[in-house]
């Protein structure tokens, strides 16, 4: 039987029986969000080559396709996924990437996963196969359900296929390093941000600010000369950014050790980029020009969440042995009510990844 039909059938049977399903692609993000429960529904049979049209800047891929394979296919035409989604393992799938909605180092400049989603095919909680969006860049026909599915952690539907915007790879890039304190790094980044520079990614950790420029050769060359700093050779820069993207960087390795040995939590703080340093105890890595701050700490969840909320952001317990205070910051009452009704609208019996995003959803 066709892999899509098999998923439709599994969801329909589960719907009839009122049985919870735990949706899984490559399993590289099993740690993310709340704990998954239910019978396993695997999307890995949804394979095959992506339908990539280089001149359309659009690619349509089956959900079970490995992200590495999709990126390799795009690279063949000098294109890429501009938001640099993490590959926590080689098994990471396209469907999982969209369901988790996580983006990498170039997020602040290039946009998020949802910004690049053009269409999805999903199987709803009643086993209905539905398509939203499409394969074109501009599309305002009906509500943009496909973009709501991005980052929904599977609670609205099983993603079976996605269409994404592909981006030509930058002609040129340069990585620069500056020795500075975190406050100085933020000040530099905000000043640069107000100028038309091809600033793409940035990371501050342990006394160093590393910035990546991407764009035309002319623009990158000019900007690199203006900004100064120490130029990092491409051979060293590429693995550095990849380490940040896939969380294999020494910061994340140390974070995992702190989680294992000291019951610490790796927090992901999403803040307004211009938020001041929060001064929370722990080791901190700053990305996205200040808008994403990773913190390894044993501080109580309430303290971290309160600090983030005070400056207009929110904190996610990204990796931890347990997440007793919840993986995600709580929702304001009117938003929670919409979430609950939206969940029921797609999944009336609550069988798809129940509780994975929030308990009760």
């Amino acid at each position, binding site marked *: 039987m066709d892999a899509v039909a098999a998923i439709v059938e599994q969801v329909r049977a589960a719907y009839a029986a009122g049985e919870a399903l735990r949706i899984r692609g490559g399993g590289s993000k099993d740690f993310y969000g709340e704990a998954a429960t239910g019978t396993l529904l695997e999307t890995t049979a949804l394979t095959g080559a992506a339908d990539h049209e280089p001149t359309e800047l659009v690619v349509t891929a089956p959900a079970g396709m490995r992200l590495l394979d999709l990126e390799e296919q795009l690279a063949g035409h000098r294109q890429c996924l501009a938001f640099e989604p993490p590959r926590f393992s080689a098994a990471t799938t396209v469907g999982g990437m969209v369901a988790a909605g996580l983006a990498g180092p170039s997020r602040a400049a290039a946009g998020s996963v949802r910004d690049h989603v053009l269409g999805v095919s999903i199987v709803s909680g009643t086993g209905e196969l539905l398509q939203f969006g499409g394969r074109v860049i501009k599309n305002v026909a009906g*509500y*943009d359900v496909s973009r709501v599915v991005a980052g929904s952690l599977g609670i609205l539907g099983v993603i079976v296929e996605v269409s994404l915007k592909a981006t030509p790879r930058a002609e040129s890039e340069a990585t620069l390093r500056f020795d500075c304190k975190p406050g100085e790094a933020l000040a530099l980044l905000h000043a640069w941000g107000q100028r*038309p520079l091809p600033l793409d990614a940035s990371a501050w950790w342990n006394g160093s600010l590393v910035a990546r420029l991407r764009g035309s050769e002319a623009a990158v060359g000019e900007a690199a000369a203006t900004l100064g700093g120490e130029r990092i050779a491409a051979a060293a820069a590429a693995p550095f950014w990849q380490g940040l993207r896939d969380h294999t960087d020494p910061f994340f390795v140390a974070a995992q050790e702190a989680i294992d040995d000291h019951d610490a939590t790796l927090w992901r703080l999403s803040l307004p980029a211009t938020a001041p340093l929060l001064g929370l105890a722990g080791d901190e890595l700053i990305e996205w020009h200040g808008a994403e701050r990773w913190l390894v700490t044993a501080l109580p969840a309430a303290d971290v969440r309160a600090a983030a909320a005070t400056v207009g952001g929110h904190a996610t317990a990204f990796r931890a042995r347990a997440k007793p205070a919840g993986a995600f910051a709580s929702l304001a009452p009117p938003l929670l009510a919409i979430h609950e009704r939206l969940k*029921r609208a797609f999944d009336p019996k609550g069988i798809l990844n129940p509780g994975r995003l929030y308990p009760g959803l």
Partner: protein
Amino acid sequence: MNAPLPAAAARGALDRQRRQAEVVDALARVLPAHALLWRREETVPYECDGLTAYREQPLAVALPETERQVADVLASCHRLEVPVVARGAGTGLSGGALPDPLGVTLSLAKFNRIVAIDAKARTATVQSGVRNLAISEAAAPHRLFYAPDPSSQIACTIGGNVAENSGGVHCLKYGLTLHNVLKVRGFTAAGEAVTFGGDALDAPGLDLLAAVVGSEGMLAVIFEVTVRLLPMPETARCIIASFDDVRRAGEAVAAIIAAGIVPAGLEMMDKRMTAAVEGFVHAGYDLDAAAILLCESDGTATAVEHETRRMAEVLEACGATRIEASENEAQRLRFWSGRKNAFPASGRISPDYMCMDSTIPRKCLADMLTAIAAMETKHRLRCVNVFHAGDGNLHPLILFDANDADELHRAEAFGAEILELSVAMGGTVTGEHGVGVEKLSSMCVQFSPAERAQMEAVKRAFDPDGRLNPGKVIPTLVRCAEYGRMHVKRGLLAFPELPRF
């Protein structure tokens, strides 16, 4: 009109009067007298939006002046179970702000205050009635700008832009409204304050902001919007390239993209459109060309120089018969003036025109133009064509005379045929103007009954009683049955025969 009304109509009119009295009475308690219009002569300007062929008289028009008044109007309407149609500048082209005959039109036009420009964070927080262009004007002293620039930007409001997910000529490089909005503050149908998105790059939970942007006022009422600003490019240059064959022009568009260039703007006009605008603005276009392309590059001077050269090389290789690059800002603006005046210029060569807005894969551009030429013969009407070629968004303008009932009918059939072909090519019935009431029937072609039912369920999740802008965007089953066209598979998946229970 002295003839007695039929009894049923008289009863209907009386019911409406009673309902109107009830609603006006309730709104008068929360609004000052000058902020509430209900007499026929007062509400006439609100009877339609930019799609003037559709008109309705609302029960009343509310023009609140404070945030509290917006909440109170919504709460009153909620209590009385009255539909509410939010409205900005009324420049929309799909009838999204068409009043409900038994509803209240809620104008947000008075909320035209720029709340804050944060140069360091590169954001602007503005009330929903602020005009699109006013944001860039306010940001200009900081050398920043707001990227989405629909052609109506001197008049259209940011609230309307969010409702429609407006594009513009620069969205290939800079994205749509969706990509440039961080936060929307507004109200639910019941008048409860709600915030979608936030000041960070993401918010916890489902991305409801993505649903609200482009929802045509059906999910929430937008009161305040925080947008992302970008540093102004140092300079920009525009190339005009002529082609003696439409197909070659279409191929040149694909070739530019394939070369890895993302132009700041990439527009196409056919020969008749070029002639119409040239007569109107004298932009210096090549009148002999079968099609012209406008390609813009922006950035630093060196980068623009480099990119312009590369674009010119590609265009030449694709058989351009004439290539001219702007040498200064005045010339660049003159090049664009023709494109930006495509709609008014069409108004000069025809009593009426119907503007289509579908998007198709870029590679189908030439096929679409060929098909449109055949449709001109079939429907005995002329069509001039202007495209956001870079993103495949077409604006064929079908010329007709609305005073001739048969021409109007033929124009509608012509338009529907373009939309159906767009869907069949793997595209969409609306790229940036929205569904509104205009393209309700075409939604039957693009979405299956189950998909439309799911959208209706999304609507109910935000607005359980269906009070906000009812009857727009999602066609009823009956309407689709009457329209009689099959849902066309969009070729996303080669769907297998599914087991049906």
